[in-house]
């Protein structure tokens, strides 16, 4: 500290003393008593006492800046503007004589050469009007709010009583479902037995039919094979059917043919019965040689074509994402949710039963009656169960809504399940309170989620003044989109502005009567009187 000289050279000196009579320039009335002319001045922090002529001499003596209330000399000083006709106020000393009019009474620019106009009266009038307008809005808004509170209360009561009702009806429904389940099960038992009986009979009948068909075919084949119509099928005649070659080695030898005929040269119709059982699997009718055997229709042809192409419905993970292109992202998502259809599972396999044996005969009257009865019981049961599920949903929703934080007096309840839009140059913004915020390009394009309901996020003393919506669509190299909704008092419920102050962090201004304060109890918001 020794050698450092600290000198001030005033090269361009400003401040001449003013003609202020009652108190030094820049001193508020409330501090008048500390500035007594002809007495030494003690800095307001008590740190130092100086001759009075060093007050407002444009040189800072007090650490707290109190010796220069009317000049810009002290870095931490304040200048008081009386602003007659408007609100008095303080400005930082650094704004005294800086060539910019700050005090509406022009007192801060007494030596800068700038020509300030006294605008206090005008400002006062405007402020008064503004305050009146605000008060008007607040008053009306608050009336609306009271109504909203009343409605919310009513609504809550309604919902609670409805919840009670629904809970009661749920009980009834539960009982009904149980009863119908018993009825259903009772009706299904005889139905099942009757159906099984019917099915068994049909199976037996089918076996008979199948055997007869086989016999008929055997006879046909015998005739077909018996080329010389001698009533016998000989091994030579058999040899013309190369598909019957037991080792399929492209040479159907005599011995092999004889082997098929049971070691003899030829067989008659009776003996052919044994032979038939050996060859019928392989035998190809001469007239229908090209037709594939029934029942082996190629599976592929009958598949639902969509099952081959379902990859089209998925976004391809291997394609590098076009990163920040918002629209693309959303397209992908929409496709995930909307356009994608699961591959069809409908198959045609069950068809093949009824070719050879014909269709199962209809149920007899008795069985049909049982079935109808069971079906009716099932339908009634399903319907009751569905009704129960609906009621349960209803209860859940009601409970959620009843327990939701709609403000101290549930005044925000009316916003629930509503949506409000604002159209700007490029986008339509949509706020669905307690649900989500979204943005949609005005001229086509898909919607972007700017956040789903998160929480009330106002300052501690006014937590219901801000809503926070979070976890919206992600940003390239950035956070998920989120929106802060600032609520202000208004007669109407309107989104008044939106902006994106920081990338992917949106700000929405929203007016609602529900945030209006009781105008009769909130004078403190308007500092009409001088602060001490």
């Amino acid at each position, binding site marked *: 500290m020794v050698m*450092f*000289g600290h*000198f001030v050279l005033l090269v*361009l000196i400003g401040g001449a003393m003013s003609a202020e009579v009652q108190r030094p320039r820049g001193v508020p009335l409330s501090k008048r008593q500390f500035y007594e002319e002809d007495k030494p001045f003690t800095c307001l922090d008590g740190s130092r006492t100086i001759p009075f002529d060093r007050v407002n001499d444009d040189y800072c003596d007090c650490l707290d800046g109190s010796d220069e209330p009317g000049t810009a000399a002290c870095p931490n000083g304040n200048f008081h503007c009386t602003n007659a006709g408007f609100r008095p106020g303080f400005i930082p000393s650094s704004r005294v004589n800086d060539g910019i009019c700050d005090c509406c009474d022009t007192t801060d620019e007494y030596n800068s050469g700038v020509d300030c106009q006294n605008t206090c009266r005008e400002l006062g009038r405007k402020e008064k009007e503004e305050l009146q307008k605000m008060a008007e809005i607040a008053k009306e808004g608050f009336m609306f709010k009271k109504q909203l509170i009343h409605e919310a209360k009513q609504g809550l009561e309604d919902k609670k009583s409805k919840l009670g009702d629904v809970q009661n009806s749920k009980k009834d429904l539960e009982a009904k479902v149980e009863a119908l389940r018993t009825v259903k099960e009772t009706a299904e038992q005889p139905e099942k037995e009757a159906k099984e009986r019917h099915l068994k009979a049909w199976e037996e009948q089918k076996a008979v039919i199948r055997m007869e068909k086989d016999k008929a075919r055997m006879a046909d084949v015998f005739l077909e094979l018996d080329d010389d119509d001698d009533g016998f099928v000989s091994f030579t005649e058999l040899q013309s059917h190369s598909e019957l070659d037991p080792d399929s080695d492209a040479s159907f030898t005599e011995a092999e043919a004889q082997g098929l005929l049971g070691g003899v040269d030829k067989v008659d119709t009776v003996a052919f019965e044994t032979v038939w059982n050996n060859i019928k699997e392989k035998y190809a009718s001469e007239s229908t040689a090209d037709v594939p055997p029934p029942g082996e229709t190629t599976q592929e042809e009958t598949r639902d074509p969509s099952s081959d192409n379902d990859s089209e419905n998925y976004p391809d993970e291997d394609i590098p994402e076009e990163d920040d292109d918002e629209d693309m992202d959303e397209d992908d998502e929409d496709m995930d949710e909307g356009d994608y259809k699961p591959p069809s599972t409908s198959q045609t396999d069950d068809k093949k039963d009824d070719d050879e044996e014909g269709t199962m005969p209809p149920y007899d009257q008795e069985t049909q009656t049982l079935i109808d009865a069971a079906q009716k019981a099932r339908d009634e049961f399903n319907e009751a169960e569905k009704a129960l599920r609906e009621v349960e949903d209803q209860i859940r929703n009601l409970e959620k809504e009843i327990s939701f934080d709609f403000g101290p007096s549930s005044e925000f309840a009316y916003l629930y399940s509503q949506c409000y839009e604002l159209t700007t140059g490029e986008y339509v913004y949509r706020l669905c309170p307690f649900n989500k915020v979204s943005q949609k390009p005005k001229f086509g394009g898909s919607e972007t989620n700017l956040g789903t309901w998160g929480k009330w996020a106002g300052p501690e003393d006014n937590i219901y003044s801000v809503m926070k919506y979070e976890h919206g669509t992600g940003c390239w190299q950035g956070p998920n989109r989120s929106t802060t909704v600032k609520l202000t008092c208004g007669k109407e419920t309107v989104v008044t502005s939106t902006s994106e102050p920081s990338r992917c962090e949106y700000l929405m201004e929203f007016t609602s009567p529900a945030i209006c304060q009781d105008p009769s109890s909130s004078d403190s918001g308007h500092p009409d009187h001088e602060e001490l």
Partner: protein
Amino acid sequence: MCCWFFLRRMGPVLLLWLAVCLSGSWAVDKGNFKTCDQSAFCKRQRAMKPGESPYRALLETMELTNTRLTLQLINDNNKVRLLLELYRLQGNITRVKINELKPLKPRYEVPDVLIREPPTEPLSLLSQDENGVVLSLGAESQRVIVSARPFRLDIVEGRDVLMSLNSRGLLGFEHLRMRKDTFSYKVTSTVASVWDNIKRTAKEEEEKVEDGMWEETFKSHTDSKPSGPSAVSLDFSLPGVEHVYGIPEHADTLKLKTTDSGDPYRLYNLDVFQYELYNPMALYGAVPVMLSHNAQRTMGIFWLNAAETWVDISSNTAGKTVFGKMLDYVQGSSETPQTDVRWISESGIIDVFLMLGPTPRDVFSQYASLTGTQAFPPLASLGYHQCRWNYNDQEDVRSVDAGFDEHDIPYDFIWLDIEHTDGKRYFTWDPHKFASPKEMLQGLLDKKRKMVAIVDPHIKVDTNYKIHNEIRSRGFYVKNKDGGDYEGWCWPGSAGYPDFTRPDMRAWWASQFAYDQYEGAMENLYTWNDMNEPSVFNGPEVTMHKDAMHESWEHRDVHNLYGLYVHRATAEGLVERSGGVERPFVLTRAFFAGSQRYGAVWTGDNAAEWDHLKISIPMCLSLGLVGISFCGADVGGFFKSPSTELLVRWYQTGAYQPFFRAHAHLDTPRREPWLFGPENTALIREVIRQRYTFLPYWYQLFYLAYHTGEPVMRPLWVEYPQDPATFALDDEFLLGRDLLVHPVTEEGARGVTAYLPGKHEVWFDIHTFQKHNGGQNLYIPVTMSSIPVFQRGGSIIPRKLRVRRSSTCMEHDPYTLYVALDNQRTAEGELYIDDGHTFNYEKKELIHRKFSFANGVLSSVCVASSQRFSLPCSSSSDLDTKE
């Protein structure tokens, strides 16, 4: 702002292209930029072996006039002759020019960089024999020795060799030639010259044709190289030198490293996305000036060539440890240390200025005598600048402006990046977001504040855009190799690039800044040129094709000059719009030697990382050494989001660097100074206010830089040239002679160790006034509010302690002189005052006084007197001293 990578506003074609190119890695994609091996001429030249120079001086061709020596050189391998010109320039500079004696067509000689044809001094012949000649360089027994075989130049003072050229035999000069397979139908000149060419071509037959001589492909881009090989290169040996500096722009240490084990330092203006630190890759600007320094002498080499250039550095002591060097010293052994430098350029000629010092100040003034000095900026531009990509709309601008007042933080300029335009059409405003720019500018003017709006040199191809139509109809666009208008992708999509090398184009461009042309502009609107490397998103190495044409020259020849021309035309526009009265302020990203004459430069798209904060110091120091004093880095870091600690430390560093601007990428969260809690707001407020209190000193330093070319922000060795401890310091710096700054650039730092130079100096902490002796390493404990800054004992620094909303608001405020006494209880200083914004200082409308304090008396004399402010030219006053 701006990386070429940012995609949101790009068309779909580019989107896909980028998606392929960039698979999400963060750092620079080195593969997008050439190594020396991938640059055919660099590879060819670097393959040359030392000690095999084919060049011989033909002494019989020597002609010596009063001012100039000329001499032919012959390449004994191919018999091609070169013409050497040697000049002695005023101020201890030697200029060496080498060109082909009879080039096939003219080779490019860089225009518009030298401020005039440098005045010469007489050369005289001292002796001559068959081995060489000795010429006197005038005073100080300086001689230049020209050796004939092999050709070499030595500059000698007394018995010391200062510098040798081609001592390693790496002079390379690829003469222009006809392409063998096509020359017969390409030649259009006279029969005689055809015959000459044929003869010459025949002689070359033994020369091998290498890949990349007539065509070169990098990634998907082919360079058609219509002129074939045309590289030039030359080596310089610097005996006794271990420290070389300069050749910005590189994100590297102040002391340049040897390049033997890697790539040479590259000078090729490029838009490098997310650049990497501590490597020799090219960045946005290029100044081909290197300084060498040892305790005896400082010198400079100015290689005047605007083509792609590579600089190799090697040293015979590079590998040695401190102990090894000590051993050499003790044993008096071995060789003297020596640094060898080699410059390689793709085209043009060799035109090199050897600035022979001997002091650092001499080198600065020598270089200034060639390329001019720092433009004297308007005072307000030395204040704080608030920038962001992007302030969204007028309301945003208004509320940020109001935020500064609410938090009582001064600022002078608020900036608008590309989003303020109507669809990236420069000189226009977004009709919705900036519907009434004049209203906005008036709002700022009412608070004596200003705005900068960006104007980039790429012009949207859009027939509804006036600027495009006019440039196209006047034929002002750069042409592609086939003669059509060159088009590339940039922010607006398809864009043309005006040919700023043309004086008529620059004049037209300048006229666009006139108030009746640039709609919405007012006197408090200034300009920022970004992307002027030029950046071409889909071009080779993100820049223009080398075979694009600027009238008769290839882009190859002029590349590094393009950004300077853009900057110049813009600055001239701002001067002209005020009728030549007002000083311009223009910021540029690309630059070249001479760019200091047009305004400020910043270090481009850095990142919010501690290492980037650290590198801002050597990057700006390197620029200052080569004349560009008005340098700054984006405070906070452009890419990514800084921690609060980093942001505060960056403000504390940036406040003591010449160009002080906070900037942020579009995708980063907001970071206006008041968004990080009251405590940090207070820290940032305090440091910005410190900046404002020092504005008189900054202004005076810039006036000095404008006058002398001395850097404002300078390495310690500039002031303590004989103290080797300062030679490699780049974590601290001096502002002028009198302020020493050691910013805190370590995360969680508890203290820093600052070197206080000068055995007989004393240094005073500017906050506590605590005195410290010089010539020591001082450990300084730090807290978040600490910024270690020291005032030199023996200095007087003028400050203004009434910090107001902006510098203009402080115009009439009193000055406070901080007198720091040295051990003899004396001090000296200066004060410079003018109107802060016009050129009237040229008419001596200024006050410039010199203060001295001795025997308890402060006296002042005028350095320059003024007609307008009639003050007595000397005065003194007794002062009561606070000790």
